């Protein structure tokens, strides 16, 4: 069990809820649990093959899961997982 923070642009898919309680013992299971609860979220987080999308970063607390155990990082009931959209742009 962990709490998953939904980024502002995706809250329309979670009935405007900013955070969702998720089941699971790892980051992957937690995010999957949220996607199961709100299926419209899935395509915004996961590629068709089930990997986390390239334009999405996941943080556990204040740390990028890429410096932890990635999607296999263990979570506890106190864990806070944040879904973060990649933000970039510029002139052509």
């Amino acid at each position, binding site marked *: 069990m962990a709490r998953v*923070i939904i*980024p*502002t*642009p995706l809250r*329309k898919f979670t009935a405007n809820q*900013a955070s969702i309680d998720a089941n699971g013992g790892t980051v992957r299971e937690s995010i999957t649990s949220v996607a199961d609860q709100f299926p419209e979220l899935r395509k915004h987080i996961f590629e068709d093959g089930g990997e986390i999308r390239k*334009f999405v*970063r996941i*943080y556990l607390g*204040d740390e*990028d899961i890429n410096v932890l155990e990635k999607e296999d990082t263990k979570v506890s009931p106190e864990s806070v997982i*944040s879904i*973060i*959209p*990649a*933000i*970039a*742009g*510029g*002139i*052509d």
Partner: protein
Amino acid sequence: MTISINKDALDEMTKHAEETFPNECVGFFYGVEGNDRDVLVAREVNNVKEGDQRRRFEVDPFDYLMAEKFAEKNGLTILGIYHSHPNHPAKPSEHDLRQAIPYFSYIIVSVMDGKTADVTSWQLNTETNEFEEEKIEIKQFDKVK
């Protein structure tokens, strides 16, 4: 849609854009959403793009995390992202379109030779996958800290 921008917030964005020239700047703006959007506060973040920052910007994911926390703490919503186009018009580029996130407003500050020349705001239409321009109204809202 109309986006109303607090004059102080707009001044923050244009000042940041001019100070950063000839590189691109980037920041978040926050406010409340009803039928329209009221932008109350703008806060800059670092452009962490490696390479040519005159043509590109990128936000550190940690700064996005902090932006969400700032919004929550202050009872505000992240309404969008501002960035500058140094010596280019305030029109979204193809690169902006490829990276666009639905829901957010994108305010673009055109800076010509170091001075703000134009400010526009855009939002992605998810059905057409094109940017639609938002009408900007400049207002003086009560000071928000």
